[in-house]
């Protein structure tokens, strides 16, 4: 059951409504991330300038980070995160056939750099304080310290915010009902 009501897109402050429109146009992004956090607009306004460059820009190419994000979504079993896809991910060659290969990424059509990042992300999901030495070694063979730190932050935030979205049962899709259409949430 949905735990936090979504803000109707038309009821968002104009800058956040514009954010949803831009997100949809550029990334084919789902609006419910903004519709959920739009309950706290000031917080969202400060979070996006930090989060968006971490995920969409940064020193690690988006394709690797997006593969890692989907891998974490699967481990977290966050329905919203698993359903989410980005236009920039598709443009970098991530289609549903490739996503299906993530279950066996060591033998799938991935680069060594992508495999090292996927192994690292899985290790952090399982035991963040106990990343195996071989996973660290493979990571350091493929990534600089700056890239590793970017990956580490993205991974840790995706794990925890993804789990929160799972706990809150945030639905996927623009048609998901808003606050006044859900009985018992307010």
């Amino acid at each position: 059951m949905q735990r936090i009501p979504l803000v109707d897109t038309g009821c968002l402050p104009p800058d956040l409504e514009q954010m949803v429109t831009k997100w949809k146009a550029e990334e084919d992004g789902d609006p419910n991330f903004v519709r959920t956090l739009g309950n706290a607009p000031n917080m969202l306004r400060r979070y996006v300038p930090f989060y968006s460059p971490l995920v969409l820009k940064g020193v690690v190419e988006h394709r690797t980070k997006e593969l890692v994000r989907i891998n974490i979504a699967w481990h977290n079993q966050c329905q919203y995160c698993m359903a989410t896809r980005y236009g920039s991910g598709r443009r970098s060659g991530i289609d549903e056939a490739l996503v299906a290969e993530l279950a066996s990424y060591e033998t799938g059509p991935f680069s060594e750099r992508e495999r090292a990042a996927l192994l690292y992300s899985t290790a952090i999901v399982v035991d963040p304080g106990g990343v195996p030495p071989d996973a660290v070694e493979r990571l350091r063979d493929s990534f600089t310290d700056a890239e590793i730190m970017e990956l580490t932050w993205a991974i840790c935030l995706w794990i925890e915010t993804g789990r929160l979205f799972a706990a809150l049962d945030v639905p996927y899709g623009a048609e998901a009902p808003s606050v006044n259409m859900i009985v018992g949430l307010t």
Partner: protein
Amino acid sequence: MTEVSALGFLVPAAENALTDDKRATLRRFSSTEAIDPGILATLAHSPGRLERFLDFYGQLVTDAFSDPRLKDVVRRRVSELDRLIRAHDLPADASELRPPRGLAADELALVRFIDAFAVDYRNISDEVFSDLRAHFTVGELTELLWAVAIIRGMARVGSVVGVPLER
């Protein structure tokens, strides 16, 4: 100055990557927040990233925790559970976690959520959420729960690089 993390990553001291005003912000942050600055230092590899995080986190702890006791309760509880997680000692049932004594009702509602979230985030009871809604508005709850996730994220980064959440 650099610090070497548990994984051997070279982590530049956060202050070296900051402009003067942000350096002052971090000093202020370090004096008012118990979060270990070693965690924030891991953001300093990329220009502007630490500053953008401080902008976000500063607002979050000011607005989401307009009452500072809630901030302390959340950070302390996440930190306590983080220590259990690092020791592989987190129980499988949230009811085995004893909340600290003397908490106010709203603090207790938050702690129960944090405990349930840590133990099994996919099976948090309706009662836990009802209790939260009895004390917080939807806007407050959104900020508080996001803060829990972000602080847990920081704790997880700390775990990876071998730095405790709290100084």
